[in-house]
């Protein structure tokens, strides 16, 4: 992705029109303002994309959890059910895994929604992960692909986020530990 500042005035104008941002001519004094507006619009778009991806991911998880609970007790009663599911939708070797999980019904339904959402998003601008547009038979592969897309566009590295979290947790633990020792000290002072 080329930086906005390297783009010409004409390119910025067309980008502003693309994002439907009301604007005047892109001149020296207005350039910085429009670059900032475009960055905001782009990051908003990404966030919206992420939220919608994550919500669809959540439905995948939910479907899996509920269906595993149903199917485990039923395993010994109707093993043939799995085979019906597996024959229906997928022909890959990985059907064995998914048959155990019992998520056969959910991908077909979710895929329809996923395809619709993909169609909507494929018309928008450049930062969409291309793998989304390809019909992917398994929920796990789409999830991993979708997770990769937001990862690639993180501004703060992941390790740094974990580090900050650990430091914060450490501080809280230290405070908590100190609080525990205080009453003992008070008792000692009283005695």
């Amino acid at each position: 992705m080329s930086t906005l500042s390297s783009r010409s005035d004409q390119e910025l104008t067309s980008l502003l029109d693309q994002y439907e941002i009301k604007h005047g001519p892109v001149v020296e004094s207005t350039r910085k303002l429009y670059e900032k507006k475009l960055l905001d619009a782009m990051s908003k778009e990404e966030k919206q994309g992420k939220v919608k991806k994550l919500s669809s991911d959540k439905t995948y998880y939910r479907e899996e959890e509920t269906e595993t609970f149903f199917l485990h007790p039923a395993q010994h009663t109707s093993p043939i059910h799995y085979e019906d599911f597996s024959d229906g939708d997928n022909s890959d070797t990985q059907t064995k895994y998914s048959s155990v999980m019992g998520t056969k019904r959910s991908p077909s339904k979710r895929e329809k929604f996923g395809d619709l959402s993909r169609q909507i998003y494929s018309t928008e601008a450049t930062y969409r992960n291309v793998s989304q547009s390809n019909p992917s038979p398994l929920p796990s592969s789409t999830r991993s692909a979708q997770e990769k897309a937001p990862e690639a566009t993180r501004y703060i590295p992941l390790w740094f986020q974990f580090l900050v979290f650990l430091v914060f947790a450490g501080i809280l633990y230290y405070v908590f530990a100190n609080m525990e020792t205080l009453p003992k000290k008070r008792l000692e002072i009283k005695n």
Partner: protein
Amino acid sequence: MSSTSQKHKEFVAEPMGEKPVMALAGIGEALGGRLESKGFDKAYVVLGQFLVLKKDEELFRDWLKDTCGANAKQQKDCFSCLKEWCDSFL
């Protein structure tokens, strides 16, 4: 109290000519100093920017905020001052 300040009334009453940027409503010494340091040393230069932004309120207020750190009230005062001046003289 009237909704527009004395500064506003004085500014919109006549052509701005060579008035300094601090003559604009909402622009005091601090903001005026920042604008001057960025090259907007006269009110008409800010007017120029206002016009290039097509007299749009949101764009002008965003620009003002980014350029000199004006708060919402200052942005609003400056915008309405320039708008009214344009309505009369432009």
